[in-house]
């Protein structure tokens, strides 16, 4: 998990800074990131495992596949964060760097990387939750051939206990997971996010000073540093060094000259690798196309596509249904909590902890509770989608409600605007851009959760217990195709689903995003 996070940070610097600095790279990288981000990663997981294992068989292959999956769940979001930070660097900073004859490396070290810290750290918090969801899911999703399954891990343990009906052990595991979550958050991710606040160009929100954990880190850090380095070095990191050493400048020059080629090569290599993996995965499918079977194959494919389209329609309705429900629940609560001095801290802390619990581990308990209700399967599916995605809307709106200008709230108070009017004319439009951003990530996340929500089984000691299963759905279809090793159906489902998502993203959401950021943003 940490390996994946580390990889993601490196990747997002490389890609984000390249896109932020060079116009050419921006044109190439942004649409690609956009598509990669919106494609349901979990859907690709079976293929990825299949591909990686066929190259690197055995345990290391599985582990690599899991790291890769988690990486793909975290990296795009963080790369966007870096890109946005680079774009937001005040022009004066860059002009100053040029003025001081700062080398490429110097700019990287003293400007680009520090500038990217706040957003990167904040997004890492979100990515961590998402990554955890995928970690647990990927552990739980057993593949058709059980040799592929990861044998150890909290996800495996929880699933196994649930399958055995050992609810005491199950609850213990869930609690243990929760405790680990809280600890990693408190000891590692949160201090990182707070530390990075100091790289913000403004002096607002210096929350880090009052945070106990952060302060103790700082204390320990300073003691250690005082011994090893002189204080000057630390300051040099923060303040922009007035002059670079000549050697550094030279290396920088050479790097700058080569960075374009290096970047391009790396980019092409990455694409090639992806293509190779996909090709490797598709090969068995393609192999079956012989001259005699060609017509039958295409007919077969057409029938499958019909099935896929029906399943897609069901899933689409499911995702959007839960989405609308999340809007109705999430927006009022998030705005209320965001505007209230008293509620904000407790609400955000509690919801952050709840949100980081990966939905699938709660599934057995949910199934047990919802058993008595009608439409139990749909309810379970909806709950899983909700738990996996609701937070995108909630946290986005919560953050936006915090930044509604105080004078606007005061003006509303002064003109005695109350009730429905206040919500319709002031609150909701104020957070509109964040509702759209949250919605885009919500929908993206929701398609991913379908893999678990629509069909879910646990196998233990050879016996399989199906916990949930909806009537129709693309997630279910994908799962079944994976279990039965039907690679054509698997590929067809993924491609159809990806195509639908990408098309909706590029048309509707692109338009909504551009419109709202133009019309509803306070910084014009």
């Amino acid at each position: 998990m940490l390996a994946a996070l580390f990889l993601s940070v490196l990747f997002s610097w490389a890609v984000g800074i390249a896109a932020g600095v060079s116009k050419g790279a921006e044109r190439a990288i942004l649409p690609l990131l956009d598509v990669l981000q919106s494609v349901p990663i979990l859907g690709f997981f079976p293929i990825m495992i299949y591909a990686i294992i066929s190259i690197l068989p055995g345990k290391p292959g599985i582990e690599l596949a899991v790291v890769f999956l988690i990486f793909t769940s975290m990296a795009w979001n963080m790369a966007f964060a870096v890109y946005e930070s680079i774009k937001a660097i005040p022009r004066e900073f860059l002009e100053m760097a040029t003025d001081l004859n700062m080398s490429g490396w110097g700019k990287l070290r003293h400007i680009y990387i520090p500038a990217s810290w706040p957003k990167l750290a904040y997004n890492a918090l979100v990515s961590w939750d998402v990554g955890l969801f995928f970690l647990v899911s990927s552990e739980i999703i057993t593949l058709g051939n059980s040799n592929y399954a990861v044998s150890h891990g909290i996800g495996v343990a929880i699933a196994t206990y649930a399958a055995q009906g050992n609810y005491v052990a199950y609850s213990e595991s869930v609690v243990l997971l929760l405790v680990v979550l809280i600890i990693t958050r408190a000891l590692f991710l949160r201090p990182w996010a707070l530390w990075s606040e100091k790289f913000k160009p403004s002096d607002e929100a210096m929350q880090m000073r009052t945070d106990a954990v952060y302060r103790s880190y700082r204390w320990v850090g300073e003691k250690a540093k005082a011994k090893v380095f002189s204080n000057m070095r630390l300051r040099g990191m923060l303040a922009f060094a007035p002059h670079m050493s000549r050697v550094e400048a030279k290396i920088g020059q050479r790097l700058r000259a080569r960075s374009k080629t290096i970047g391009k090569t790396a980019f092409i290599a990455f694409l090639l690798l992806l293509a190779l993996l996909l090709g490797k995965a598709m090969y068995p499918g393609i192999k079956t196309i012989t001259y005699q079977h060609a017509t039958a194959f295409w007919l077969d494919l057409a029938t499958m596509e019909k099935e896929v389209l029906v399943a897609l329609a069901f899933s689409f309705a499911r995702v959007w249904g839960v989405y609308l429900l999340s809007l109705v629940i999430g927006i009022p609560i998030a705005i209320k909590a965001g505007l209230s001095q008293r509620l904000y801290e407790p609400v955000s802390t509690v919801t952050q902890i709840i949100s980081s619990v990966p939905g699938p581990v709660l599934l057995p308990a949910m199934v047990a509770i919802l058993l008595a209700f009608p439409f139990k399967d749909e309810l379970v599916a909806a709950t899983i989608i909700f738990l996996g995605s609701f937070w995108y809307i909630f946290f986005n709106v919560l953050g936006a409600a915090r930044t509604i200008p105080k004078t606007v709230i005061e003006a509303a108070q002064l003109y005695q605007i109350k009730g429905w009017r206040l919500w319709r004319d002031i609150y909701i439009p104020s957070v509109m851009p964040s509702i759209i951003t949250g919605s885009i990530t919500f929908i993206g996340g929701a398609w991913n959760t379908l893999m678990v929500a629509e069909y879910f089984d646990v196998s233990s000691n050879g016996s399989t217990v199906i916990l949930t299963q909806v009537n129709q759905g693309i997630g279910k279809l994908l799962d079944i195709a994976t279990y039965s090793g039907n690679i054509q159906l698997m590929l067809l489902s993924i491609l159809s689903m990806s195509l639908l998502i990408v098309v909706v993203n590029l048309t509707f959401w692109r338009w909504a995003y551009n419109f709202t950021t133009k019309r509803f943003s306070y910084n014009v």
Partner: protein
Amino acid sequence: MSEVETNNQEQEAQPPIILALKNINLTIQLDKRVLEVLRDVSFTVKEGEFVSIIGPSGAGKSTLLRVIAGLVKPTTGVILYRSKPLSSTTKGISMIFQNYALLPWKTALENVEIALYSNDQLSSNDKKAKALRSLASVGLAGFENAYPGELSGGMKQRVAIARALVLEPEILLMDEPFSALDPLTAEHLRDEVYSYIINPSSPIKSVIMVSHNVEEVVELSDKVIVLSPRPAHVIGQVNIDLDRPRDKKSFEFYTYVDQIFALLT
């Protein structure tokens, strides 16, 4: 205390007091620290008077204005508006905010109309007509359908003024109304604002303006309240007795400017 009042003014019949602040204290709690913002602030505003509040930045000038608007409750002390204690926001007192507080998703006209939302007696047509008149009175006829993003800083400020005027308040509060504008626009708007606001056809009787610009304050005010650094209390009151329009190059003008600077430093 520095009083500059001429004798003949005292002999004339005084206009009635429209607003009186009596021993206003305000302490707020910030991260477990108790912060004293206002200490025993008292002054009066007469009908027809343009009063400015000046003080070092961070002193609590804007907070004081919010106390008068009824947006912030003082810890102790009372505000008498036409001799009645003020407990919340009222139609008689309106405010222009520092960064205009315009809603970017509403047109200039709609931004003015929101001030009338809570008025149930007016039909929506009447509200629109009133808002249009108000926009025209600040020289923005023809810009009703422009969004704030399409307007210059000076025009945005005029929309904000139109919004405050549409309620026909008796007292207008202005929080650094010219500080976000470039000096030329500010200069131009200062001259105009005075004529929009203080004229026989305007409902506004008195203005209270917060500023940190001494020249601006001397140019516009009848009375200047000088506040100390936090916790803010009144360290001086200067009555400015100059004919309007005021000659900013005159000796008398600079005597007042120097006097206020002396109090501030």
